[in-house]
């Protein structure tokens, strides 16, 4: 099965390569775009001096380029510029490839074959555009990487009634090289039966290691609602890692007070091991987003992380961030 998947993926890549080269002769414009986040954080997790920290940081910058090689072929590259934590003065920044893929359309109606480093089409992780500063639940808990190398098909249901994505990945995420021949398979389907109501189901199935192989499966169900001025979603997530099952959910709501101002709230509840009592924790986030000028968003968040585990201090985070889009 594994070999068949690999064979299919490689055949697809080789088969399409000449088409990509041919299409590249009709060169279009290269468009740069992206974001930079400048953030200040104050953290309080205890009474000792070491428990209280504050920092200014450019936590992340996305430098993106896209170009149309042909009316059916598009290429996108995203460089992820981040500051290393605890870095020395000589190596305080790192540039990583976040996304680098070629999209080839024309084979399947309203769908593209996507080759390369691409999003992980799962739950909320590929839809989360950081309305709050915190990552999506599955990303924050590191149950999934937000991008990975592989081959995918992404498409739309007719008349905008939803979308779907199927992909085969390395399974190691964009920050690590493949360490074995076990591929991860991911599938997601979203349906929008009526405007404003979205239902999404996702399954990510992988194995890690060789002997023994360990299952790393994730499943998510998402219910989204939007009707101006309100946007909300509920995500239920469950994970299977060898003998350990984790379960939890994330609730998010946003209220647009005007075209420039919104209040936001999120509540996450996570139990990392179903079989163990009192090891869970909750996250409460309240936020305010304000568009200062076009392409400049001010985000103010207050976040509390509340642990059930005895001896582990709760965290209070005060975050202020400016997000510049270009």
């Amino acid at each position: 099965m594994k070999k068949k998947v690999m064979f299919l993926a490689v055949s697809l890549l080789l088969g399409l390569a000449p088409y990509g080269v041919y299409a590249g002769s009709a060169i279009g414009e290269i468009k740069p775009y992206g974001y930079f986040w400048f953030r200040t954080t104050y953290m309080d997790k205890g009474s000792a001096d070491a428990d209280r920290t504050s920092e200014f940081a450019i936590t992340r910058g996305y430098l993106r380029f896209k170009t149309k090689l042909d009316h059916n072929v598009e290429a996108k590259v995203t460089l992820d510029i981040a500051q290393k934590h605890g870095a020395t003065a000589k190596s305080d920044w790192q540039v990583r490839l976040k996304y680098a893929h070629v999209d080839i359309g024309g084979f399947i109606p309203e769908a593209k074959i996507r080759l390369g480093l691409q999003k992980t089409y799962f739950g909320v992780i590929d839809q989360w555009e950081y309305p709050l500063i915190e990552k999506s639940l599955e990303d924050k808990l590191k149950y999934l990487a937000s991008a990975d190398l592989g081959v995918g098909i992404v498409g739309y249901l007719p008349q905008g009634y939803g979308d779907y994505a199927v992909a085969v990945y390395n399974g190691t995420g964009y920050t690590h090289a493949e360490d074995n021949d076990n591929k991860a398979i991911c599938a997601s389907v979203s349906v929008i039966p009526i405007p404003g109501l979205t239902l999404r189901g996702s399954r990510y199935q992988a194995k890690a290691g060789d002997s023994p192989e360990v299952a790393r499966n994730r499943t998510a169900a998402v219910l989204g609602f939007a009707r101006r001025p309100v946007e909300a979603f509920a995500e239920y997530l469950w994970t299977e890692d060898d003998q350990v099952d984790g379960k939890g959910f994330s609730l998010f709501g946003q209220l647009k007070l005007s075209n420039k101002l919104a209040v936001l709230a999120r509540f996450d509840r996570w139990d990392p091991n179903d079989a163990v009592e009192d090891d869970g924790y909750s996250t409460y986030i309240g936020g305010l987003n304000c568009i200062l000028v076009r392409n400049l968003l001010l985000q103010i968040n207050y976040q509390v992380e509340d642990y059930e585990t005895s001896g582990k201090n709760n965290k209070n985070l005060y975050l202020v961030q400016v997000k510049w889009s270009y």
Partner: protein
Amino acid sequence: MLKSKSILILLSAVICLSVSLIEAMAQKSRTKKLTIQGSTTVLPIAQRCAEEFMKEHPEANISVRGGGSGVGIAALIDGTIDIADASRAMKTKELKKARVNGINPVAHVVARDAIAVILHPQNPVNNLTKSHLKAIYTGAISRWNEVGGTSDVIVVVSRDVASGTFEVFNELALDKQRVRPDALMQASNQAVVNIVASTNGAIGYVGLGYLSKEVKPIAIDGVMPSVATAKSGAYLLARSLYMYTDGKPKGLAKEFIDFVLGPKGQKIVKEEGFVPVK
């Protein structure tokens, strides 16, 4: 501890929701305002219709802006405007995004736009295929004898890239390929007519409303440009122009769409060089 935090957060969310809903409803009832944004091609129709409409309805305040079809559609999806002008139908990707956001886009075809390909009156060529036209404009064909004409060099005249006419021509005739770099890029339809009328080997394209005796319109794939062929869809270089609303239009938006599709609005459509749909 956990309980009191949850209650506080829930209470804050409910208060904010109530205040903003009351404010939004109050604001809506106070004003009779309509915001329109989108295609630069549709802009002259929307602007003139808005002017005429406001003369008849002094209580109405209609704001019309350009920016392009994509910009207008994005604003409709974000819920920041009432009507999006578009010179193309919404893409599936945009329809999906709109539905996710609780927007139900409804298309109103307000006009048809046709582009006539014109030559110097003495040029013997009367018909070009789409592939010939594309080859001429992208530089693959450079003499008229390659398409059944004289040995004259072809002088390519185009609208500048900012114009809606260029956008249509580029999409429908050239499949979005780049126009040859030595093409004479003109800022108006009339400038294109003037150059083609005074240059033997010239080829150009203009909106249907700009045809005159000084230039010769030709058939594309055997179909001549006319109001009838543009309306029927038989002519290749023709497209519909849209105004999109969120759901079936109501109130002022309905009155305005009805005006555009009525006799006065369609007269404006014709005067602006487009093909009326009614």
